[in-house]
Each structure stands twice: as C-alpha cells, then as structure tokens.
C-alpha cells in the first residue's frame, strides 16, 4: 500500500492533481487522499467527486488564507498520519514554501515545478526547466515521501462524478501562531482580463518599444477575439500592463489554442507559463530568440510591419 496525498490551496488545482493521482493509484496500489484545509474543508464532497478515496478536512483560524507556518505544520502532520509514498502539491509562491519546509523536516528531495510525471518502479520521474529554459532536467525522487510541486494547468481535472464514493474524515491539526504575520493584503485592480480562459493570446515582449504601441496589439487581439498577455518586464518593470496580463512563473499559466509572441524573446519565467499552448507563434526580428526555436510558426521580421498586416489579413478572413 502506497497512498498518494494531494494538497493544493486552490481547489481547481487540487482537482487537477487528483486526476493525476487517480492515474498513478493503480500502479502504486494505494488510495488517493485529499487534504482539504481551511475553506476547502467545506468542499470535501467535491474532492471525492473529482477522484479522492479519502478526504482529510481541517478547519482552523490559522488555516484561513495561506500562511506558510501553520500550513507547514498541517501538511507535515497529515503526512505523518497517512504515510504516503507520493505527495502532490499545487504550485503557488506560498505553497512552494510549505513544500520546501516539509521536505526539509523529513530530509527528502522535493520536485519543483514538474511536468511529464511518470512512475518507474514506484519512483516518480519528472521534468522541469533548467538553465533558464535552455535545458530540460529529468529527475527521479529517491526517498519517500516523494514530494512533487506541480504548476497549475499541467493536468486536466476529471469531470465531477457524483456517483463516486469516498470517506470524509475530520483531521485534528495542532497549530501554533506563526512568527510571520500578515499585516496587509491588497487585491490589485484587475481589468476583467481572464487570460486562462482566452482561446487566443497575443503577448507583448520587450521588442515592443513604447507603451502607446500596445494599442496596435490590442487591435490584433480584438480581431482574433483574443486577450493581451505580456512578459515579466512589461508588467513588473515597465508597468505598461497590469499583473493580470503577466504570463509566467510568477504570473498566469496559460494554455490557449494559439499564443502569438510579439517581440517576446522566450525567457524561462515566461515560457514556463505558456509552454502548454496548442500553437506557438513567434514574431521577432531576432531569429536566435528562444521563442522562435520552440514555435510552430515564426516570422522573423519587424513586428511593427507584421502586426498591422496580420490584423488586416485576419479581418479579411473574418469578414469573408
């Protein structure tokens, strides 16, 4: 018996991981156990419907939001109780801290931001980006529990199955007040952009010279019924677009039908957020840009000439 424990602060992410856990469960001959902490505890039945055999629920004042120290204790205690062979954790900045702390308490390796997970003789083998996206590192986890952090949208959640049966069990956690206290939490204004839902994303990179030029890109996005995304420098350094447009490790992870990078070089932080796109299109003057090399279609030319022409051509097709 080698159980799989699944924890993600975001329930959608948890459902994605439950789908992968179900796939692994027969090979490990174990059960799929979901850990539902804080508000998620109220949705225990949803975890069952999405693939959990057991759901451990814990509600506590300190488990509201995602405070690293109490969540570390809770995950650690759940691992001690369940003794899983594999722990799947949904990636977020705070969840990574939780997984890293728990892995250190247990003196085990942690797989970070992994995709293409598979099992070889009960051991997890996964891939992750390395050398700033210049290589793919394949790693095998050697010790139990094998803790693997999985980015959102790597796996697809199964549809909820109301006929699935599972046990919901309250789990007693012993928590102490954290040393790090949240003193301020500001929700940044979003303009109603939902990149994750967009079928087409037109993405702005450093090849775009000034903020005013984004109007031209908005136009292209509009004729494509798409959304505008961007790289880290455009959102974080130049602040030409809000964080809701930011694609990448610290931003949104997207999988549109088509991703069109305009003057996007293809740094690791960005590619990690869009590598799952069905079609990748690169428009860039520099043919050495990594994005050009991983594209389905590339135009190596001046985006300022290509974008208006492309807008016109798409309009022609849409109009006809």
């Amino acid at each position, binding site marked *: 018996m080698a159980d799989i424990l699944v924890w993600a602060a975001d329930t959608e992410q948890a459902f994605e991981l439950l789908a992968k856990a179900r796939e692994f469960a027969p090979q490990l001959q174990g059960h799929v156990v979901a850990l539902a902490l804080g508000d998620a505890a109220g949705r225990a039945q949803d975890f069952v419907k999405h693939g959990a055999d057991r759901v451990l629920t814990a509600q506590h004042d300190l488990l509201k939001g995602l405070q690293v120290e109490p969540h570390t204790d809770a995950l650690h205690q759940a691992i001690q109780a369940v003794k899983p062979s594999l722990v799947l954790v949904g990636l977020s900045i705070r969840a990574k801290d939780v997984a890293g702390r728990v892995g250190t308490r247990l003196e085990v390796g942690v797989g970070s931001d992994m995709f293409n997970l598979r099992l070889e003789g009960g051991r997890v083998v996964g891939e992750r980006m*390395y050398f700033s996206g210049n*290589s793919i590192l*394949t790693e095998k986890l050697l010790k139990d529990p094998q803790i693997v952090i999985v980015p959102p949208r790597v796996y697809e959640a199964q549809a909820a199955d109301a006929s699935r049966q599972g046990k919901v069990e309250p789990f007693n956690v012993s928590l102490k007040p954290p040393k790090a206290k949240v003193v301020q939490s500001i929700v940044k204004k979003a303009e109603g952009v939902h990149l994750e839902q967009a079928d087409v994303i037109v993405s702005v990179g450093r090849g775009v010279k000034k903020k005013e030029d984004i109007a031209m890109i908005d136009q292209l996005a509009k004729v494509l019924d798409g959304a505008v995304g961007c790289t880290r420098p455009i959102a974080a350094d130049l602040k030409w677009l809000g964080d809701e447009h930011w694609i990448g490790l610290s931003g949104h992870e997207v999988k549109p039908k088509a991703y069109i990078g305009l003057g996007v070089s293809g740094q690791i932080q960005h590619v990690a957020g869009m590598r799952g796109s069905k079609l990748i299109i690169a428009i860039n003057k520099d043919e050495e840009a990594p994005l050009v090399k991983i594209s389905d279609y590339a135009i190596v030319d001046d985006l300022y000439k*290509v974008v208006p*022409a492309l807008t016109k051509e*798409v309009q022609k097709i849409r109009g006809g």
Partner: protein
Amino acid sequence: MKVAALVKQVVDVDQIKADREGNLQLDNLPFKISNYDKNAVEAAVQLKEKNPGTEVIAVATGPNIRDGVKEVLAMGCDRAVVLNSKEFAGSDNLATSRVLAKMIQKAGGVDLVICGEGSLDSYTGLMGPRLAERLGAWPISSFTIKVEYANNALKATSNLGGVLETLEMPLPAIVTVSEEINQPRLPPLIQILQAGKKPVQELKLADLGLGPNDVGAAGSGNQVVSNRAPKMARKNVRLKGSPEEAAAQLAQALRKEGVI
C-alpha cells in the same frame, strides 16, 4: 544586525549551446553570479545603509568562488564566507541547504538571511524555505518586492499574483527577493580595488561538521536522470517573404488550424 546574503556562482546560461542530438555543451563556459543573488546583495547593502551598525556577510559557493565573490564584496558586503569543496558538486537543494545552513551558522550571529527567489541555473525557489526550516523554524517572506526594517521587525511585501501581501516578521528571519525589489549597483573602481582586501573565510566540509555523504549525489534527495536541450514537438515553420506576405501566410495558417 547581521545580514547574510547568499551568493551562487553559476554557468552563464546564455552561452549554453547544444549539439544536434540535444546534448548540452557545458565545457569551458564562463561563470557568473546568479542575477537574483545580486538583488539579494543589493537589498542587504541597502539595509546596512539605512541601519548603521549592520554587517553584511556574503555566504557564497561556486566552482571559482574565491575570485567570483569579489564582485559582491565590491557592491558593499563587509566580508565573505566561501565554500571550498570538490565533493559539493552535484548537490541538489536538499544537500545544498545542509551546507548553506552550516555556513550561515559559521558566519556567526546572523539574524537575517537574504537570497534570490531562485537561482539562474536551477530556479527551484526551494532554498529559502529549506533554510528557514534548518535554521530553526525561522519565518520567511518569499519572492519579496519590498523590504523594510524598523523596531526590531521586518516588513516584507510579495506579489502573490493579483494580491500584494505584506508580512511582519521578528528576527531572525529569511527573505527571498525578486528582481523587482531593486536595481543592483555597479560598484565604482575604487570599491572594486578595495574588495580584494576584505576578509574572505574559506571553509571545507569538515569545518562545517559535514562529510562527503552529506553532499553531492550521495546527500541528495533527487537523482538527475538527464539534462538535455528542450525538445518541443513543434512544427517550426518559418514564414518568409515581405511582412505583408508572411502575415497573409500566418492568417491562412491560423484559419487552417481552426483559430479563426
């Protein structure tokens, strides 16, 4: 206050090439200080400038770190503690955290550790939380974009994707920083020249109470199966001609692919 800034020397990732089979050609590549670590050093030096009496210690590793550490000493670190160990190569973040925790303890009385959000080569983002645990359940702020110190407490703000969260933490604590936190300074020549005179303490594994089994492949939790150039199953079609011609081909391709 004693601040340790963690510094890792990495291969210059922009110069990595692969052969046709996808094997990486890593021989004879130059090394550099991981870019996020310079943000960490800058954050530490800025805290020193605002809080007199603060000492900044670079805790540094890398194949040629004795030389490499001069750059961060020139940026304003007061001294450095560096690792001299052949066995250290091939350590994963579990094994590395064992070494760094001991080095930080050797540095003496450190109450704040600042490191990058990740390293330029491996970028797991796990070193901060691992050290937080090893150093005795210290509080942590990760991917920090702003840090202030007042009244014996740190205020650290992170961008959690749509939410700006500020944590208040007592010392000792650990902070990992994002690029947005600052612009690392370029030290003037005089400081570069003086950097060579700053104290650098070189430590071996035995000085840290560690043995060969604590590091490298033997001390790691993860085993590297392979490290190869990305193989993306993509079409790799180059659309040629004038911008107008290429755009027309792309529009037709998007139509065929069912995008429009």
